């Protein structure tokens, strides 16, 4: 069966190549095609579900949390040792301190950032979001216990303080929240508001920080007093009463960036960074005492960028300047400052950790040696007065983790009853590692939670050096495995054998081989993350093959930091697949304010090394991938700068010669969101390199060819979607049941634009159905011609759309019916209508060798239909297969972070409520007013891809199968076969059963032959 269908599909391909193009196949063999489609339709059914034991065979799911910004350890008590973390991706998670696994995790909304995190009473996790939502979570299981909304001044310092008092006598200490001028006490048990005061209204102070002195039921709020003073107010924790302000002023203006406050003193820096001001908090004195110290008396060379760091140190402050970090000790009685440490290079200091008896410990991580594969760091833990070194360790971290960005210190009691320290460190690549006893206990690749862009690369071919044969089992073992499978199928296997079968299926040895496979299932997923790290994941099980923190994109002293933007296929070797590796290009944008505006970096996709990098003096606004490659199979790219000049890369003579021939056909377009316009450009002449000061690449001038102006009062661009450039269409026709032919309008330059009424478009629930209209456009980006314009009254965005072949499917909200809707538009070329029948198609004048020009007149027919849809969507994609023969599935990322796969057949504008028998035979589904959702059509089955942002579909070499990679906070990968697997046997096919059947048949033939011989002999003797 496999071979027969395999040959069948292969046969089509060879046939196509022999005739010089895939279009010929469609014309010469429509019947063959019909057969294929019929087989595909026959084999397909609306159900694409998998069985329980198939989970994990083809798919994998990984959970991440993002870059950690707050961490609280919970190691006391008999319970499991854990650390609670809050991240920049707005996730709250409880991690196992021994392994780094997630016990539980909650992902908050995109705007619900976590400002403060505390653990109260050893079992409640308290979070403060955006200064005005306080939530309590049950530490063991992560259940939400209560949520309270309080008043807040946005844009001010926020904080959460565990009070040492119990105001409402419920045996649970209460909490104090300060946000701007508001001080709020809430019950630790149920979040009830106990008291709230507005310090700005009563005492005219905005509180920067609240500290708890040693004496009970009192707190100090410290803030700036005017522009040159500091103020302190005493807070009665029981009642919220504020004492009179204690103020003090200095001569200079204070920098309001940061105010360092401990229970004994507050430190501020003058805005000219010349003086440090220490305010002594003395409860007995009537006013604040200020002590000013010139910075130059402490530091000989304070540098130009001196600033106070927000690290919470006890009895000390830390400052950073240029590339040095300074720690100054503060005498709490006199306010005198003294230099403790002056460190150059990359140093990270942790907050002070309170250990026993008023003692504190602080960790410092210094970068010491840059190794080839590993960086060496010194981890030092200092005691209360920073003079003693309690612990010193040398830790090695892989070089792709970069420098340490954050340290969280935790103490534990060693087996010999002494104090030991462990540190949780956040790397430059956003990873999280636990260091203890000089070792890396575990590491989480949390940078993968913030993928910017993803693409794929082929794995290397099998070479002599990389023997794959040894990985495979020998024949006896292979047969044994199959017999076990057979037993499992016939319900004869014991539970142990069943477990062994399942284990063997999940850990198929050839799934994770680092070489290409026949079916094209094994690939590298290249992902570029926000931190400027590129990682290659194996599609087999999702393990990281290599990682690279791209050196040229790292922020260096005196240079800009780069934000990675794009990941492009630079070189995909076909002819040189054995001796050349695929290369990808990373485009990054520099922070503003520097001469360097952007950077390019080329990375080898097999080795994970940076080959080359260039810093550009212009910002890259758009990248045009040109369908030309030079002799080393490097793809030509045109980078468009802010002046709309094109820069050709690779900047070689050869590529220039190639491009000059192609120049006439190079166009690009830009979307001006601010002005609601679209512009198209064509290439003009090469700029003489002597005349421009730009040295990177060959520069071409462009000319504006077209403009579309959307009326800005009634239309605002909300979605712009194009076809994927590497999409393959197998046929340019659609044969109707009556043997008529419809010609698909296959234009690679088609773009779908959706506009909505700008009024109230972003505010949920405020738009009026009568005023809102959604307009869908289909635009040819070469000629700027609007191919179709259709308005949907009473509709509103957000619009999600996908364009493939000759159709567009888009999703929007119907304000009148208060439901989501999806629409399909299919575009057919009417100008080729004379070649209507199949015979005319074969003999007609039009064939694929005649080029189609965007400037020729067109006559299009656009068919459309709309349907109700149940879900809000986050993203949309479409499956892609190697030859485009297989039917397509729409992949919808739902609001529940799942991936739903729906047949394109459901979105067919030819659907009618009562299809004719001929249409039913063709596979046309009867029209329903809403799209039915089968629970089994979820590709993610029981998983959720938290924070789903994008989906990538990759064609496998096996025509029936498309690979799907969904990413957000989590990663998910699976295979999908929209028309079921018609070109190979299923993985649970029992070869043993086939073999046994054949053997049994052979035996039966021999036996019956012998019997019949005997009978005949006996017959003759009669």
């Amino acid at each position, binding site marked *: 069966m496999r071979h027969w269908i395999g040959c069948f599909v292969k046969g089509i391909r060879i046939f196509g190549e022999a005739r010089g193009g895939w279009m010929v196949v469609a014309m010469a063999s429509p019947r063959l095609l019909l057969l294929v489609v019929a087989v595909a339709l026959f084999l397909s059914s609306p159900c694409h579900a998998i069985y329980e034991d198939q989970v994990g065979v083809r798919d994998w799911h990984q959970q991440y949390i993002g870059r950690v910004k707050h961490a609280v350890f919970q190691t006391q008590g008999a319970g499991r040792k854990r650390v609670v973390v809050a991240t920049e991706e707005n996730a709250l998670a409880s991690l196992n301190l021994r392994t780094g696994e997630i016990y539980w995790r909650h992902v908050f909304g995109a705007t619900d950032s976590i400002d403060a995190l505390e653990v109260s009473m050893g079992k409640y996790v308290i979070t403060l979001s955006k200064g005005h939502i306080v939530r309590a979570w049950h530490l063991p299981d992560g259940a939400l216990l209560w949520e309270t909304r309080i008043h807040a001044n946005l844009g001010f310092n926020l904080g959460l303080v565990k009070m040492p008092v119990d105001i409402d006598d419920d045996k649970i200490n209460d909490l104090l929240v300060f946000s701007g001028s508001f001080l709020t006490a809430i019950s630790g048990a149920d979040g009830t508001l106990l008291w709230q005061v507005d310090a700005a209204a009563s005492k005219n102070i905005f509180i920067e920080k609240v500290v708890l002195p040693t004496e009970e039921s009192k707190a100090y709020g410290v803030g700036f007093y005017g522009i040159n003073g500091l103020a302190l107010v005493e807070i009665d924790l029981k009642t919220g009463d504020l004492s009179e302000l204690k103020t003090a002023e200095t001569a200079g203006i204070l920098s309001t960036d940061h105010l360092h406050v401990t229970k004994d003193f507050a430190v501020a820096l003058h805005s000219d960074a010349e003086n440090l001001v220490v305010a002594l908090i003395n409860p007995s004195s009537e006013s604040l005492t200020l002590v000013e110290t010139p910075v130059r008396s402490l530091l000989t060379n304070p540098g130009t960028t001196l600033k106070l760091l927000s690290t919470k140190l006890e009895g000390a402050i830390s400052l950073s300047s240029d590339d040095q970090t300074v720690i100054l000790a503060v005498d709490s009685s006199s306010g005198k400052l003294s230099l403790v440490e002056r460190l150059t290079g990359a140093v990270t200091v942790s907050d002070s950790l309170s250990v026993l008896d008023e003692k504190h410990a602080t960790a410092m991580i210094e970068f010491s040696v840059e190794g080839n594969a590993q960086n060496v760091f010194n981890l030092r833990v200092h005691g209360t007065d920073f003079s003693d070194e309690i612990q010193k360790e040398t830790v090695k971290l892989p070089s792709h983790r970069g420098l340490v960005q954050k340290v969280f210190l935790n103490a534990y009691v060693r087996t010999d009853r002494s104090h030991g320290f462990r540190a949780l460190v956040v790397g430059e690549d956003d990873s999280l590692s636990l260091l203890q006893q000089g070792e890396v206990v575990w590491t989480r690749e949390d940078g993968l939670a913030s993928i910017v862009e993803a693409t794929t690369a082929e794995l290397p071919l099998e070479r002599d050096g990389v023997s794959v044969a040894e990985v495979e089992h020998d024949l006896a073992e292979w047969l044994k495995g199959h017999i076990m499978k057979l037993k499992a199928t016939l319900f004869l296997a014991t539970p142990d054998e069943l477990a062994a079968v399942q284990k063997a299926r999940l850990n198929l040895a050839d799934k994770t081989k680092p070489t290409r496979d026949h079916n094209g299932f094994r690939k590298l997923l290249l992902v570029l993350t926000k931190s400027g790290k590129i990682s290659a994941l194996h599609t087999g099980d999702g393990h990281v093959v290599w990682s690279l923190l791209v050196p040229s994109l790292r922020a260096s002293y005196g240079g800009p930091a780069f934000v990675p933007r794009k990941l492009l296929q630079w070189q995909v070797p076909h002819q040189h697949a054995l001796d050349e590796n695929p290369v990808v290009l990373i485009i990054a944008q520099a922070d503003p304010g520097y001469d360097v505006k952007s950077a390019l970096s080329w990375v080898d996709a097999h080795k994970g090394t940076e080959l080359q990098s260039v810093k550009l003096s212009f910002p890259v606004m758009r990248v045009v991938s040109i369908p030309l490659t030079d002799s080393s199979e490097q793809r030509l790219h045109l980078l468009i700068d802010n002046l709309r000049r094109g820069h050709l890369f690779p900047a070689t003579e050869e590529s220039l010669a190639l491009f000059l021939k192609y120049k006439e056909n190079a166009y690009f377009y830009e979307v001006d969101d601010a002005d609601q316009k679209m512009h198209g450009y064509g290439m003009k002449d090469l700029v003489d390199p002597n005349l421009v000061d730009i040295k990177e690449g060959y520069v071409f001038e462009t000319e504006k060819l077209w403009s579309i102006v959307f*009326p800005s009062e009634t239309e605002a661009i909300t979605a712009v979607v194009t076809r994927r450039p590497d999409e393959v269409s197998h046929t340019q026709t659609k044969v109707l049941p009556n043997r008529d032919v419809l010609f698909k309008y296959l234009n690679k330059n088609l773009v779908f634009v959706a506009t909505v009424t700008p009024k109230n478009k972003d505010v949920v629930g405020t738009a009026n159905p009568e005023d809102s209209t959604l307009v869908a456009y289909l635009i040819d980006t070469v000629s*700027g011609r609007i191919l179709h314009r259709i*308005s949907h009254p009473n509709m509103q965005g957000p619009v999600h759309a996908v364009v493939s072949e000759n159709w567009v499917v888009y999703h929007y909200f119907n304000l009148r019916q208060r439901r989501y*809707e999806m629409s399909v538009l299919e575009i057919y070329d009417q100008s080729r209508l004379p070649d209507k029948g199949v015979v005319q198609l074969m003999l007609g004048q039009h064939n694929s060798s005649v080029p189609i020009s965007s*400037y*020729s007149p067109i006559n299009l027919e656009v068919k*459309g239909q*709309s349907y109700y849809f149940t879900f809000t969507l986050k993203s949309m994609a479409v499956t892609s297969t190697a030859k485009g023969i297989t039917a397509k599935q729409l992949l919808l990322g739902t609001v529940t972070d799942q991936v739903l796969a729906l047949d394109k057949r459901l979105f067919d504008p030819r659907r009618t*409520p009562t299809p004719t028998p001929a249409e039913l035979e063709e596979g046309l589904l009867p029209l*329903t007013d809403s799209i039915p959702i089968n629970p089994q059509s979820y590709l993610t089955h029981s998983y959720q891809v938290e924070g789903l942002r994008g989906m990538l579909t990759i064609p496998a070499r096996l025509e029936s199968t498309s690979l799907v990679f969904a990413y957000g906070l989590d990663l998910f990968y699976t295979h999908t076969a929209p028309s079921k697997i018609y070109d190979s046997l299923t993985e649970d096919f029992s070869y043993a059963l086939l073999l046994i059947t054949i053997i049994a048949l052979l035996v039966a033939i021999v036996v019956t032959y012998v019997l019949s011989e005997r009978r005949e002999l006996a017959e003759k003797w009669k």
Partner: protein
Amino acid sequence: MVAMKRVVLVFVLVAAIAVCGVVSFQSDELPEDAEEWGLVGEAPPVIKTKVAEKVEAEAEVEEDYSDGVLSKAGRKGARAASGAKKITFPLEHSLGDGKFEQIGTFTGILRTSGVESGNERQVITKLRLARNVMTTAEKQAFENLVKNDGFYTVRIPANLIKPRRKQVLASVKARCLAAANLKERFDLFMEQGNLIGVGYAPIGDCSYPRPQVFPKDYAFETLIVAKGNEQAPRLGPRFEEVVPLRPGEKLVEGEEGIKVVVEKTFWQKYWIYIVPFGFIVINALSQLANLPEEGQPGQGPAINAPSQRTGGSGGGRNRR
């Protein structure tokens, strides 16, 4: 006699229409699809740049074939609220040097409706273009464009009623235009008096490689098509309407809502009884048919019996 009268009447009518056309100087329109298609017409060499005042006569002609279904009172009301106004706006072109010059003027009729209901709609109809005659320098520049395979770019203001800074651009290869002998087509996508985009194309195929042909006489032939007012059909509760039932179907209200149930025919319902009954009847009939033969012992069977037996035994032996 009657035929004569008819001929005269037709003649008078034609003459009247012709006279009217001359008076209103725009007689060569295609009334049957004037709403959808603008106008095919050659360019008169005159440019009209002045915005004409309200032309009542124009409005009346306009309403006559668009709102034919309106009642007289309704039409009067509509006329009071809405207005028809002649508008003009420039067409500018660029011959590859990036500089734009006015080369013609579009004229059209702006109809405003629904002012009093607050649901104002503006529609521009009857668009036509008056192109200027190209100067020798322009002709030379155009020929250079054809030689270099450059772009001929046209520009129209985005706001057609009050032309402002925003402009809509479109370009075409000059060679395409020359090959089509300057037959051009404008597809104007308009919404409420705003021009969104313009599709500018030659009338004729323009596939690569484009031949280098120069236009003989610089006489443009223009076709203007106004587009863009298509509205998607509303997705209403279409299945609450009467579902066309096929013969034999009926609606049954059950626990899961209304279902279409195909009613069974008599045969489908009762075949299980009819078939056995039929067998019984056939059996009984054959029994009845056999009865007389048994009651009357004939010689035929007796004679035949031995030969049959021999035949049978012979066969049996062969088989063994």
